[in-house]
């Protein structure tokens, strides 16, 4: 059995300290997030769930575009992840 030589302190620390992008999103479930789309559009709402494509289910969503925020929040929506640029947990 071959032995792997590791630098001191490099053993399990990598797994513990590396934060995967999807982990950040997973920790935001149940919280309000900002979603910035490519193009001048933004969504603010409570994250209910997401998948590997970063399609997202959001609740009580305010859509913000060039004309400002929408007046009536959307109760529940599925956002296509194809044009998501950034997700900001609040």
């Amino acid at each position, binding site marked *: 059995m071959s032995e792997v030589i590791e630098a001191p302190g490099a053993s399990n620390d990598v797994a513990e300290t590396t934060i995967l992008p999807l982990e950040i999103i997973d920790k935001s479930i149940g919280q309000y997030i900002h979603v910035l789309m490519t193009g001048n559009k933004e969504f603010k709402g409570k994250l209910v*769930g*997401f998948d590997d494509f970063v399609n*997202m289910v959001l609740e009580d969503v305010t859509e913000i575009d060039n004309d400002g925020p929408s007046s009536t929040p959307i109760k529940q929506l599925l956002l296509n992840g194809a044009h998501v640029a950034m997700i900001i947990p609040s």
Partner: protein
Amino acid sequence: MSTDPSHFLSNIIGSSVTVKLHNGVKYAGVLQSIDGFMNVVLQNGTEVAGESSRTYGDVFIRGNNGMYE
């Protein structure tokens, strides 16, 4: 309780939905089916574009255009 997108979609089959495309046009109708590409079939689909609204029977929307329910 709906959590991830696939659960959400199976939960809302048969209900009234609005699909907004990237160009801003909305289509409202009864959600008949949806697949993994987010292709959508609406029954009694109506186009909601400002003043004008057109009514169709069944509407197929190719998934890459859809933005939300």
